[in-house]
């Protein structure tokens, strides 16, 4: 393949304008291909075609979502921007958390690969998001993994879940990053479309922030990390079979698997190597290699810089023999990074890489033109304006239409579903709900993740949000939670996205941290379906408007389309991640009760009869219809202020937010996590079923020491936050008593809560 006759050079392309090219197989539309020809004034070479086709894919170009995502920027005010050091468009968002510290965080999806090859799909999903964080100049400090699978008892769920959990753990544990949270949701819509979203948090000093720019004519472009192989080439392998000389030599690779295999050890070493490079101050620009490999890294770096770039592609260290330039450009081999370095610093750069046994190769140079020129053994195989590859891809205004069944769905409310009426029925329902797969303890999963490594994990699962200490001296730290209820989003994507935001925001505040910024991962069906585009548009609007109301900016995110089976899309799933800051992690609020005996249990917020999309309707009736709970963001903000103030003044000894499963679930978890009993009394004259299982938003259960009760409730009253005294912590009891309903032994509850996942998956 390396013989010159087979190479499709720019000269060859110019002289063979009519040669047919497999652009359709590469996913390009007729008009997109024509646009490439117009940009170049000729047909693209095979390498250029490979580059444009991956970079103009939905995944890389955001061509269907771009027009909507703009709304995030448009709805962010100057005030919201105040603490944002980098936002949408960079590898990851960065916020200033005070004391000279900056924190970067982001969520990404690796959904499809995790269905094909669950272990490697999940592992490389974690690897990819970690490199994004590294590319900002930060040390990655924690990961989270929001996961969604098909029905818990479906045979394929077992295969996918086993692989995904082992992959997240196998990669993250070996990398030395504590896993401090995530989600685990089962719903039939995710069968065949599991969602593997991975989030990472990184920390750095404000002055160490690095952006992906290739600037400074004469600066060197260095590729470092793993060798480049044939992994993940998937679509581009059609180029290998499309023989320019009529030779069949490429046919052996026609069906390359589009799977990448991760090597967490190499990534761990790469992290330490990068951090040492940053410390020495010898990196001008840095970019990770993720989807679209070198195509993406070279064009994005060049496009964001102030000049052009020349790349000697044949210098790239390879793992396979006979790779074509197009393959080298498209390979998604993992654990690679690209840096821009001044000539004077190249030696120092190489020395540090050698210390860590990291392969580093100077493969290019920043030039003073505005072209990205790539040569292969001195022949020009790519000569393009980089912006046209990286930033000026196609933009679609996809048709949007409210789904035809939306009204019927909303009209079919849960009001007529049979409800428990006797105490016995309620008792049974509590146990049934607690042991249902979505509400059961996630311990079977989280026990496979290292939550301790690096010794800064202040809160990890089970907790409302994970919390990590950033500064050992001052105790400053951050908290993060990701949330989304896809059923709510199906009923009303605008409100559903706001409910996801509200829940993540509340989860962060519940641990005593002040919510600061937002990231998201938009998991949806096909953008070519107008109904899906409507869901997407509504969710973006809802999230953006919600962030504006709460005064915290969206700093980044990710879009994953085409999550569907046939014509059926997954539940719209805009996973929202909220990051909060806490000035002193020792004042964190734990989830479990019982640190102090005799605490009063207070329920903050209002309970309404809200069962549309609830876990109860799902578990007991397999029903989805009606309206989701109302969202009141002013209330969420007030609740957060009260929780943070309560934490600051030492008035709260435990807190747990109410979400899926309502009060019953929250109380049970507070007892089990704290290994302590309680007595609960529901408001007089209220309907116990509604009190226990409604999923009204804006509520938190708090445990307050007797001595602080008056001060705390007076604060709530003064600020206008409804509260109700609903119980006491009872360490002696060994049981949870819900007055006039039932008493549960803690052992009985634990068995119900913790038995489910092992029974399903061991």
């Amino acid at each position, binding site marked *: 393949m390396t013989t010159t006759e087979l190479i499709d050079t720019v000269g060859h392309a110019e002289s063979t304008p009519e040669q047919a090219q497999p652009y359709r197989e590469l996913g390009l539309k007729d008009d997109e291909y024509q646009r490439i020809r117009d940009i170049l004034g000729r047909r693209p070479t095979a390498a250029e075609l490979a580059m444009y086709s991956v970079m103009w894919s939905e995944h890389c170009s955001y061509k269907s979502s771009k027009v909507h995502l703009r709304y995030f920027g448009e709805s962010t005010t100057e005030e919201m921007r105040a603490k944002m050091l980098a936002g949408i468009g960079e590898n990851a968002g960065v916020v200033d958390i005070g004391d000279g510290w900056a924190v970067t965080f982001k969520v990404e999806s690796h959904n499809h690969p995790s269905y*094909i*090859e669950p272990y490697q799909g999940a592992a490389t999903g974690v690897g990819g998001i970690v490199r994004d964080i590294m590319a900002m100049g930060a040390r990655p400090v924690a990961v989270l993994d929001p996961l969604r699978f098909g029905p818990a008892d479906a045979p394929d769920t077992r295969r996918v879940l086993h692989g995904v959990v082992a992959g997240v753990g196998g990669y993250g544990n070996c990398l030395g990053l504590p896993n401090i949270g995530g989600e685990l949701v089962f719903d039939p819509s995710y069968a065949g479309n599991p969602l593997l979203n991975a989030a990472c948090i990184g920390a750095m000093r404000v002055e160490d922030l690095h952006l992906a720019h290739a600037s400074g004519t004469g600066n060197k472009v260095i590729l470092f990390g793993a060798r480049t192989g*044939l992994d993940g080439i998937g679509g581009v392998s059609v180029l290998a079979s499309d023989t320019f000389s009529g030779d069949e030599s490429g046919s052996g690779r026609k069906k*390359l698997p589009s799977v*990448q*295999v991760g090597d967490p*050890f190499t990534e761990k070493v790469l992290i330490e190597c990068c951090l040492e490079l940053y410390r020495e101050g010898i990196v001008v620009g840095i970019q990770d290699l993720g989807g679209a490999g070198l195509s993406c890294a070279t064009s994005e770096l060049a496009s964001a810089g102030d000049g052009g770039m020349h790349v000697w592609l044949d210098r790239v260290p390879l793992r396979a023999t006979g790779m074509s330039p197009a393959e080298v450009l498209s390979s998604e081999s993992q654990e690679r990074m690209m840096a821009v370095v001044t000539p004077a610093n190249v030696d120092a750069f190489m020395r540090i890489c050698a210390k860590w046994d990291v392969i580093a190769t100077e493969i290019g140079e920043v030039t003073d033109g505005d072209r990205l020129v790539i040569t292969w053994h001195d022949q020009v195989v790519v000569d393009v304006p980089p912006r046209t590859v990286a930033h000026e891809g196609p933009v679609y205004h996809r048709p949007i239409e409210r789904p035809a069944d939306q009204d019927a769905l909303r009209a079919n409310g849960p009001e007529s579903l049979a409800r428990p009426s006797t105490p016995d029925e309620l008792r049974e329902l509590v146990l049934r709900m607690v042991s249902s797969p979505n509400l059961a303890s996630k311990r079977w999963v989280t026990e496979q993740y290292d939550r301790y490594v690096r010794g800064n994990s202040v809160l990890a699962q089970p907790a409302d949000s994970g919390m990590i200490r950033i500064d050992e001296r001052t105790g400053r730290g951050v908290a993060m939670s990701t949330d989304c209820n896809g059923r709510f989003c199906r009923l009303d994507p605008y409100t559903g996205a706001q409910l996801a935001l509200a829940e993540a925001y509340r989860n962060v505040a519940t641990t005593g941290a002040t919510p600061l910024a937002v990231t998201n991962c938009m998991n949806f069906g096909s953008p070519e379906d107008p109904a899906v585009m409507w869901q997407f548009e509504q969710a973006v609007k809802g999230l953006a408007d919600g962030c504006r109301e709460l005064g915290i900016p969206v700093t980044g995110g990710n879009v994953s389309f085409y999550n569907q089976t046939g014509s059926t899309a997954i539940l719209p799933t805009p996973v929202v991640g909220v990051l909060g800051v806490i000035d002193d992690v020792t004042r964190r609020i734990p989830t479990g009760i019982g640190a102090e005996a005799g605490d009063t249990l207070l329920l903050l917020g209002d309970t309404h009869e809200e069962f549309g999309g609830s876990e109860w309707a799902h578990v007991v009736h397999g029903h989805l219809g009606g309206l989701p709970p109302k969202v009141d963001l002013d209330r969420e903000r007030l609740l957060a202020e009260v929780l943070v103030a309560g934490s600051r003044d030492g008035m709260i000894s435990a807190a747990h937010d109410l979400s899926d499963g309502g009060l019953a679930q929250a109380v049970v978890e507070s007892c089990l996590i704290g290994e302590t009993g309680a007595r609960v009394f529901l408001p007089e004259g209220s309907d116990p079923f509604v009190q226990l299982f409604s999923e009204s938003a804006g509520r938190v259960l708090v445990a307050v020491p007797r001595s602080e009760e008056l001060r705390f409730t007076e604060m709530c009253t003064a600020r206008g936050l409804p509260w109700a005294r609903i119980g006491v912590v009872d360490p002696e009891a060994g049981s949870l008593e819900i007055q006039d309903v039932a008493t549960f032994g803690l052992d009985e509850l634990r068995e119900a809560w913790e038995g489910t996942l092992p029974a399903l998956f061991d």
Partner: protein
Amino acid sequence: MARVVVDVMPKPEILDPQGQAVANALPRLGFSGIGSVRQGKHFELEVDDSVDDATLAKIAETFLANPVVEDWVVRRVES
């Protein structure tokens, strides 16, 4: 009873971090002349004579190996 051996190897184009780790370590341990190393799995099964080759092939393909990333070979050996 027959003894059956199944060897499962990462496909040639697939990254093999395990084999690579061994290959990189050998020179450091003072062993030279080893070009490449690939590491896979080796299974030894005791099998009833009633189990035919098609069944063995199926077991290997659906269970012992992951066809997306691995190749495998099934051999009956005398015991």
